[in-house]
């Protein structure tokens, strides 16, 4: 093994220890005052095992009626590649381009080849683990239904597709780092994060649409040259060949997939010689010298005490911390996308009645329901969590701090967002009264969800570290839950919006629930929050 690694300029012993240490750190979870939080890594791993296995089970159930094996394999590989791409964009970009490790390793005798190879290995191990968790159920079902040969071909297609996706993402990051240079890379990555969030939510919509249209066409697929432009079809072609129904085209696609995998590997090996580590080091020394943008101006609404403190912090973070900024702004392209998709359905523009508004734009409702949870997650988890010691040693009332954080989120982000969305909906619908009614119901429901999420997990602002590997998992879980909620809403709203008394009753119930939850929060969250400990 030593000789093999040596031939490509990698120190095998160093590579092994770097990879093992990175995995050990991830498994143990974030450090805390006690040195580490025992079991935090295991808990997050358990969450991922359950979530990805459940998603795999969901896909296996969806694919059960599909008779065309090739189509089933394309859908499975597509979903797997989409999931790996999302994780690489949202969770593992830091593994490839973060200069943090360089501060520790930069002055050690580790070559850039070895350093990069260790990071690459880390990404590939996660990719393999995630693919296994997601694909084991569908692959097992395929094997039982169609035999070992098809099962093995499915396995090969799924893993090869995942590996190709991960390698492509790594190649893209390395290319960005090289093309933009250290000074612009952080900003570029931030915008990439925004674009990727849009892609994730858009992708969710797209996949749902694919399933729906596939179901409408009774799971039949027209095989044409379009398959060449569809990378999942290249990897899924293994299954078609194994089943004996593949033609020359499928053989060519399978060969293409192998060529692409080899090309990616060779391209990345070539990149290893570009002094990767030194460029990361330059990222650190490039520093952050941009002038301060004052956050205080946005906090004028809050006069003093905890509310003003939280408002000051949130606004400063929003204006200067691009990660937080993008976490919040990610909702905008997603909403726009959903509005356009709603319009494309052709049922809505200018023809809305009080009954069909909830039904015709369920995805816009989904976006509005998702927003508070996205906001809360961005507010709690931050790279700046170590600075929260000042909050923990201050005499502030923690329950009040939590409620202030919630109020700041509602006033500064949720309300303007709902208003902007409302304006866009009025423009589409030409029906002010209907839209206002819908926004009141959705707004109250969104606020209620924010309260529930604070009740379930009361956390102080910017006080928890970002869990590697969990961002994409959370988004998947959240999207699925919100999808269910939006569907229920779409089914229920016609009967609510049909009668004024039902609308009034709904608003009344939601308002009463908000008040009850607020009281409950004062009691329960105060007790819970008092027990929170600093994790820095």
């Amino acid at each position: 093994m030593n000789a093999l690694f040596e031939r490509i300029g990698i120190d095998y012993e160093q590579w092994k220890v770097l990879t093992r240490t990175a995995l050990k750190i991830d498994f143990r979870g974030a450090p805390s005052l006690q040195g580490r939080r025992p079991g935090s890594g295991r808990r997050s791993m358990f969450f991922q095992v359950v979530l990805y296995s459940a998603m795999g089970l969901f896909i296996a159930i969806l694919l059960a009626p599909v008779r065309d094996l090739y189509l089933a394999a394309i859908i499975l590989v597509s979903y797997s590649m989409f999931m790996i791409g999302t994780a690489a964009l949202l969770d593992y970009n830091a593994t490839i381009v973060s200069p943090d490790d360089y501060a520790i390793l930069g002055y050690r005798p580790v070559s850039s080849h070895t350093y990069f190879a260790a990071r690459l290995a880390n990404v590939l191990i996660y990719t393999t683990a995630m693919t296994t968790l997601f694909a084991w159920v569908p692959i097992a079902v395929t094997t039982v239904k169609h035999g070992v040969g098809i099962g093995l071909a499915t396995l090969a297609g799924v893993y090869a597709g995942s590996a190709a996706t991960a390698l492509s993402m790594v190649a893209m990051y390395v290319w960005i780092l090289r093309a933009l240079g250290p000074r612009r890379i952080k900003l570029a990555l931030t915008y990439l994060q925004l674009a990727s969030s849009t892609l994730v939510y858009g992708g969710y919509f797209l996949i749902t649409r694919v399933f729906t249209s596939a179901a409408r066409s009774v799971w039949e697929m027209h095989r044409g040259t379009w398959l060449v432009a569809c990378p999942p079809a290249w990897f899924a072609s293994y299954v078609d060949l194994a089943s004996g129904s593949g033609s020359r085209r499928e053989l060519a696609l399978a060969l293409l997939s192998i060529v692409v995998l080899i090309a990616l590997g060779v391209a990345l090996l070539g990149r290893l010689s570009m002094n990767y580590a030194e460029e990361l080091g330059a990222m650190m020394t490039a520093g952050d010298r941009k002038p301060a943008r004052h956050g205080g101006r946005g906090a004028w609404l809050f006069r003093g005490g905890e509310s003003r403190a939280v408002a000051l912090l949130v606004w400063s973070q929003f204006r200067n911390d691009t990660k937080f900024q993008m976490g919040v702004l990610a909702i905008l392209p997603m909403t726009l996308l959903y509005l356009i998709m709603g319009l494309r359905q052709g049922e809505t523009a200018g023809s809305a009645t009080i009954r069909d508004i909830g039904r015709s734009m369920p995805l816009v409702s989904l976006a509005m329901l998702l927003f508070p949870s996205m906001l809360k997650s961005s507010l709690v988890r931050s790279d700046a969590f170590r600075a929260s010691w000042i909050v923990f040693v201050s005499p502030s009332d923690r329950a009040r701090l939590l409620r202030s954080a919630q109020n700041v989120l509602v006033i500064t982000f949720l309300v303007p967002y709902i208003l902007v969305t409302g304006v866009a909906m009025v423009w589409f619908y030409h029906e002010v009264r209907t839209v206002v009614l819908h926004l009141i119901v959705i707004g109250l429901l969104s606020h209620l969800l924010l309260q529930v999420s604070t009740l379930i997990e009361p956390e102080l602002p910017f006080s928890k570290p970002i869990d590697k590997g969990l961002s994409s998992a959370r988004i998947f879980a959240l999207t699925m839950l919100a999808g269910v909620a939006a569907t229920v809403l779409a089914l229920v709203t016609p009967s609510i919006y049909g009668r004024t008394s039902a609308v009034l009753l709904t608003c009344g119930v939601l308002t009463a629930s908000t008040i009850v939850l607020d009281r409950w929060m004062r009691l329960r969250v105060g007790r819970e929050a008092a027990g929170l400990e600093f994790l820095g």
Partner: protein
Amino acid sequence: MIRTEALAKSYGDVQALADLDLVVSPGEILGFLGPNGAGKSTTVKILTGLIRPTSGRAWVAGFDVVDTPVEVKKRIGYVPETPALYESLTAEEYLEFVACLHHLDAGTAATRRAELLDLFSLTEEAGGRLATFSKGMRQKVVLSAALIHNPEVLILDEPLDGLDANTALIVKELLKKMAGQGKTILFSSHILEVVERMCTRIVIIQNGRQVAAGTSAEIVHLTQTRSLEEAFSKLTGVRDVGQVTAEFLASLDRA
């Protein structure tokens, strides 16, 4: 005043602190010494309410740190050993943020903020983001944040770390004067010369237990040594320094 009774903290099987009895009276600067891992930071974190003790009790300014943590926090100013800051804030905003957490009225907060920035020669940099500050400048901000609410009790963990000589002089003088006004100060540091010169009394802990207490002269006398440095070495179990270093260098040569 700071008082602890049989204070203990364990992390699983590891006993970080055991039966610590500590008294720091108003007007006193207590030097809190110990080798790395002796339990100093654990004590400080319990006193500031960052963590809870496993057993025993502690009072700060007359309030129990477990039963009435908020009352304690109203009265303390704290400088941690490795202070992280919200780097997106400016120095001015950070001090306003801390003032809000302490419920200072806007007028008082603004006046104190200006005075502290002036005291630490940070007025010109007040509008700069903390991300761009040097280690010393950040330490000045942390010290300002510890003082802005005029606390009764100061708990300082390596407060002079990173400060230039002039600012260190200002801080030492300020602390002496604050003690003169009746404030209670717990001063934790590894720099024995500073502790010896500044502190009215010294407590040395080792393996989570108190091993000596008194003035510098009393500790030197008690240990029958010639200086606080020697006394510290003797009490905390360091072997003969000359012998240890010679052995190490010899082992390097052998390898």
